[in-house]
């Protein structure tokens, strides 16, 4: 069949001019990788290999000066760990939380694309208000002023229970707490969130 | 044949058919050949089927032939044929027909135009096609990539043009009995003698070239289109690639023959496609069955 065409890194000059990958660097990282890969992929079976990985950190970084921030996936309640690599205030890529005790670096398709929550061009960009069936951009101040004025108006006219507040299971504990507290301070029990359904 | 051997014979046949029937029954029960869906091997073969179809069929042929065979065929076509012709040229030399006995109007201006358009784009097809086949030698990259695009464009133009050419010439291209004779003496090219050769308006060689380039060209266009668009299943693609390569080699071969014939084998032959006239002598000898009006 086909003749074997393995290009040796060591003989890069002779067999091919095209490989510019530093052979030294490449070889060293392979040896390391084999351990890393085992620890990651076999996590559920050989979790204790993890320690070996940290032994040698790569010298060169694709994103120099980036910070690695530990955070938690925002999709389901498993609570998978995410390591976000941030360079100059921009989330450049999602690193793998191999040592997270629950997920061991695993993600489903939603979590694997978590970065899109921030980078998606479909994100709402400014406050908006529907005027004549069309969405109109407004400023935060205008939005909050109009909303609160209307709320106070309704409260005066119909009482506090004329407001229904649907809170969220997507926010932090602190925010959820504030939502409940808001309803209490507003004077209504008309508050609920996704746990109901 | 005596009776006992006949009985034995029948008995043997009967046994065979029982065995065959049993075998088929077993197959249908999937007892012998498919161990049911719980088998991992069966699952794997099902995956294979889902992913690439019956890869073992043309896939294997393709990867067996593409790396070396196709290139070798093309190589020997473009090296070997010219070599043969060089020997012919040296050993026998070109035919020369005098213009003294006047000329015959052979190709109308429209025919010539269509022919030249076809010629240009076919040459492009051949050259760019060869460039892709021998891409390794040229190092690939943007050069070959753009040549591939030229190949596609040329193919489009040539396909249209070849269709017109086909309509113009198809009347004169049907095979005739004497074509066999022409083929047997290889069109008389092996000697310098000016014996009349059995051929109509077009000789058997030209006819072959015509059919190959139009019908074969059609196949080339069709397979090429598939390879370009990836519109069919992988298995059909592989077959298309195999056909495209073999047929391509044949076309390149005939292209070289055609070039040699028109440029070297008969002196001034090229002129007839430029002016439209052939020497009367040439027509009488090389196309002896053609009735000059």
């Amino acid at each position: 069949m086909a003749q074997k065409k393995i290009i040796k890194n060591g003989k890069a000059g002779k067999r091919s001019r095209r490989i510019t990958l530093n052979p030294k660097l490449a070889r060293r990282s392979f040896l390391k990788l084999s351990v890393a890969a085992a620890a990651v992929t076999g996590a559920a079976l050989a979790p204790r290999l993890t320690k070996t990985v940290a032994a040698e950190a790569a010298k060169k970084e694709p994103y120099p000066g980036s910070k690695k921030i530990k955070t938690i996936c925002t999709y389901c309640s498993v609570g998978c760990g995410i390591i976000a690599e941030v360079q100059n205030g921009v989330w450049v890529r999602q690193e793998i939380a191999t040592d997270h005790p629950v997920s061991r670096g695993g993600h489903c398709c939603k979590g694997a694309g978590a970065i899109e929550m921030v980078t998606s061009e479909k994100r709402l960009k400014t406050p908006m208000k529907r005027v004549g069936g069309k969405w109109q951009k407004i400023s935060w101040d205008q939005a909050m002023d109009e909303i609160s004025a209307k709320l106070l108006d309704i409260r005066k006219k119909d009482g506090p229970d004329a407001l229904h507040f649907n809170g969220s299971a997507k926010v932090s504990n602190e925010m959820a707490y504030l939502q409940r507290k808001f309803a209490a301070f507003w004077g209504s029990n008309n508050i609920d969130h996704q746990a109901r359904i | 044949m005596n009776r006992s051997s006949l009985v034995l014979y029948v008995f043997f046949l009967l046994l065979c058919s029982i065995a065959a029937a049993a075998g088929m029954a077993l197959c249908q029960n999937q007892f012998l050949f498919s161990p049911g869906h719980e088998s991992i091997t069966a699952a794997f073969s099902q995956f294979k089927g889902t992913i690439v179809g019956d890869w073992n069929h043309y896939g294997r042929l393709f990867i067996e032939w593409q790396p070396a065979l196709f290139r070798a065929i093309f190589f020997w076509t473009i090296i070997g044929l010219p070599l043969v012709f060089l020997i012919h040229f040296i050993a026998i030399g070109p035919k020369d027909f005098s213009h003294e006995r006047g000329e015959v109007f052979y190709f109308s201006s429209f025919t010539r135009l269509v022919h030249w358009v076809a010629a240009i784009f076919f040459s492009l097809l051949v050259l760019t096609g060869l460039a892709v086949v021998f891409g390794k030698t040229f190092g690939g990259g943007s050069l070959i990539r753009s040549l591939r695009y030229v190949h596609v464009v040329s193919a489009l133009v040539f396909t249209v043009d070849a269709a017109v050419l086909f309509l113009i010439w198809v009347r004169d291209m049907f095979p005739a009995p004497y074509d066999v004779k022409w083929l047997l003496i290889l069109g008389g090219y092996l000697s310098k003698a000016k014996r009349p050769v059995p051929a109509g308006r077009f000789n058997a060689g030209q006819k072959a070239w015509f059919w190959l380039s139009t019908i074969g060209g059609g196949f080339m266009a069709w397979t090429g289109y598939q390879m370009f668009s990836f519109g069919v299943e992988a298995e059909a693609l592989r077959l298309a690639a195999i056909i495209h390569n073999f047929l391509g080699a044949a076309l390149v071969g005939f292209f070289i023959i055609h070039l040699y014939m028109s440029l070297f084998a008969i002196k001034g032959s090229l002129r007839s496609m430029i002016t439209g006239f052939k020497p009367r002598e040439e027509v009488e000898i090389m196309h002896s069955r053609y009735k000059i009006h």
Partner: protein
Amino acid sequence: MIGSNAAEAHPVAMQHVLYAKEVNNAPIIVVDPRFTRLAAKATDYVRIRPGTDTAFVMGLINQIVSRDWYDKEFVRTRVAGFPEMCKVASHYTPEVVEDITGVPASEVVRIAKLMATHRPGTVVWCMGGTQHSIGSSNTRAFCILQLVLGNMGKAGGGTNIFRGHDNVQGATDMCVLSHSLPGYYGIKDGSWKHWCQVWDVDYEWIKSRFHSKEYMNKKGFTLARWYEGVNQDDKINQYTPIKALIQWGCAGNSNSQMFKAAKAMNKLELVVIVDPFAPAMCEWGDKDNIYLLPCSSQYETSGSLTSTSRQFQWRFKVVDPVYESKDDYEIMAELVKRLGFADKFYKNIKKIPEDITREICKGTLTIGYNGALPERIKKHTLNWHTFDIDTLQAKGGPCDGEYYGLPWPCWTETHPGTPILYDISKPVAKGGLPFRARFGTKITYYDGRTENLLAAEGVANPGSQVKGGYPEFKDIVPGTNWKTDLSQKTIKEAIKRGMAPFGNARARCVVWTFPDQVPVHREPVHSPRPDLIAKYPTYEDKPDQYRVYTRFKSEQDPELVKKFPFVIITGRMVEHMGGGAETRSNKYLSELQPKVYAEINERTANNLGIRNGQMVWIESPEGGRIKVMAKVTDRVDEHTIFLPYHFAGQFEGKSMVDKYPEGLAPYAVGEPANIVTNYGYDIITQIQATKDGLCNVKPA
């Protein structure tokens, strides 16, 4: 696993499920009306008729008890109401179960044996178990099953509810609910007074904020039926209809009978939507009463969250809010400032979010949030690599000996967290707990039997001063109990004595305050089995359930199935989440699942003349209808239609894309399945019954 499709809804949890299957050789039994991707990985699969979980599980319990497979010692010492429960369960013989659920009688026996011979075993359920009119009975039946098997409070046992959203556990603990204050305190006067103390505000002032004291103690409208407060199709019990709606990070298209919610939009005077992506709600209605506020995603803010295993994790801020979006805290602050109670609201909150966490810790004593201080949560998240994967306990390092995420209850600032609830093999200070003594110490049942509710003698956590049952702690600080003692002295005292603050009692099989004291099967409100309605009728109508008249019996109609012969169930697909505004705005995920489809059995499809990929109309008895693509598959049986519910952007066949703000409509649009989900709510919680409605299908 019953009513859960972890392979699609919680894929990472499957890592551990498959580990159990492979390494521990655990049988994975999947009970589901649909042959899910989880069922594909299971060792045993049971196809059940939607909405009959209680009958099936009671059938299992009956087998386990009658064949003497139950854990006698566990039942003797830690379970209450057992004889009463057995009496009810004895009705569910395998033959009865077969009739109700469609599961062959022999399978019922086999599964019961499998459960009995493989201990400890865990029961996992999700929305498939709860979204029924008898959802609360289902969940109780699952728990009783674990009690009779003695699987409670053991590693590898227990009941595991895989919750949906990332912080639905936390938000529930914070009781963003209309019937409770944070920490499940309820809304009685004592609870209000407790929280007023925590908030450092005057109880009278809070009371003055309400319309009247009656409405302070009255459960509010729920997410499931808030639109009734606007539409008033069913009678409401509130002095005013709802006029304004704030929808904060919550998808509108996950409501059953969603078209009614959409109808309500035009009757509202004000709608405020706070979301990072354009949600389904902005396509509803056409009045100029709606505001869309861009909040940042959770990666652009920080805070703690509670995962399904009650673990706290700190979500650190990754980047600053993008575009002009603001984070949730900021929007809330702006709103509160303008509504004029900011000084009281933020009295003890200076640094956001840590001070809020501290306030939570101060007040949420019932479930032991008090030990989960922000510093501790952060320390755990930052050192997650020091925790062991099997025990989730840190080995050395700054969190030595603590369990990952301090699973609540985390009683004190040094408590390691409680990884397994009701585990009496460990001291309370090391993460052990008995059952909670919540319902008094003695009870007389309807059959006249009186039982001591405290645990039997000799059953207590190691190191407990009382070797046996004991009631909850109170009056250590006079006038308070362990839940309301803000100084937390009571809790500390209990831990010091090796005892649980909430006492040591029995788990009860009988809930004397519920309409069904022991779970029994009741046909779904819209039942496909008219012959069973008389035998297993649903509840009486409830005139004031969360401020709205909820129909049960008057809605149950044996004739309905003739016009609407198919059972509709909804569920998730792995690529999308909830209402899908986030995931359908992700170009890659939308590429993988661009369309909504209805799964229809091959036989049904052929009978109706529907080809794979053809468009079909699905109609609900309420009058909603959707046009979706048919996906002919064996996943569902002949009587069932499955719909994924994540979609929006189309409404009864019409495209709604142009009603979104320009360019912000998600990549993937489709009909929301919840247009055709049916009427039907749980008797206790008012959870919507999306998993057992009826519908009709016809080719479009």
